[in-house]
């Protein structure tokens, strides 16, 4: 298991992060983990084998086995941060780890959310040009889309509610052999 070490900047400003999240219902924390910790975590994830999931009218990506990584996000420092979003002792569930490369995407689901959920998305990548696609995008009823470009070592937390429809933008051929990993979960 990798010992999770948050970037010192964030660790010392948990309250203001919580306030910013409560104000906007989302927050994006770049360079989230301390560098060596991130590199160690990334090495472990890149080495994972996975299963290609292709359902043409819904999605295309590689699903990685996440059993061993649940503990990473159940560590004290992460839970301390997450408690600022939930305002109570948090629990992480529905963890998914997916790798996206050329030709991969997810499409908007038809099923409507029954209640608000706080979701987190942690991005692991090299240098990623957003022009090739891959961005985590929310179509929001009666509003401009909310876009989270892929960036390495970047945590995004968002309250997903009714009228918000997330998808991963199709990754075009200019991505070449590049790919990124997205760790996704629900903070309850």
């Amino acid at each position, binding site marked *: 298991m990798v010992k999770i070490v948050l970037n010192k900047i964030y660790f010392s400003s948990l309250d203001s992060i919580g306030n910013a999240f409560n104000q906007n219902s989302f927050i994006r924390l770049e360079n989230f983990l301390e560098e060596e910790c991130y590199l160690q975590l990334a090495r472990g994830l890149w080495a994972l084998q996975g299963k290609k999931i292709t359902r043409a*009218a819904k999605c295309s990506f590689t699903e990685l086995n996440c059993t061993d990584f649940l503990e990473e996000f159940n560590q004290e420092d992460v839970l301390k941060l997450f408690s600022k979003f939930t305002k109570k002792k948090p629990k992480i569930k529905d963890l998914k780890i997916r790798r996206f490369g050329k030709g991969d*995407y997810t499409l908007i689901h038809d099923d409507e959310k029954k209640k608000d959920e706080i979701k987190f998305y942690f991005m692991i990548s090299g240098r990623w040009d957003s022009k090739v696609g891959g961005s985590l995008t929310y179509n929001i009823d009666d509003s401009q889309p909310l876009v989270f470009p892929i960036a390495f070592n970047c945590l995004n937390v968002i309250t997903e509610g009714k009228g918000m*429809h997330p998808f991963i933008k199709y990754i075009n051929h200019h991505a070449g052999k590049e790919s990124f990993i997205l760790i996704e979960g629900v903070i309850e």
Partner: protein
Amino acid sequence: MISSRFFDDETMKLMKEDFLNNKPFPHLIIEDFLSEKEAKILQKALVSEEFELKDSDLFTFNQTQDLHFSNNEKIKSFVEFLESNDFSILIKEITGIKVEPGALDLFGSCYEDTHYLLCHDDQLEDRKIAYILYLSEDFEEKDGGALALLSDKKGEPDKIVKRYFPKFNSLIFFEVSKKSWHQVEEVMGKKKRYAIGGWLR
């Protein structure tokens, strides 16, 4: 606009058979649909239309306004042809599906490098037939941009069964159903994939 060859009994019989028997769902491709001269005039008219980028989870491509509102005489003439009794009779003869003369949607599209349209079935309201007339230079495998038709398995798209690379002045049409799964594969390179297409109702 329609060549007299389409009204030859033997040709009509072959087209009907092909339409019904083609897999993975009923469809037909007709090459050299218009005369070459007319096709080139129409191509020039389409390229001069204003296109707007359309971008969503499902697609990225450029599209014109509804071509019913075009001011271009050549486009108007083509719209009239598609709305004519002759065309709806041709469609009925080939497909067995009655479409209302004049009841159609049509737009111009232009796919450039990285543009695409992911898998879907086109089912909406009273759409009966989807059609597309290619007005770009011919595309090859390396250019991408193929119209891929997929089989259905338990209500979801399964495997690619047919792939058509855009060929100038070819018309493709298919019956819209819950099994008419299709996609436009990503265009790769400098060629622009122009077409006029839409649905008959």
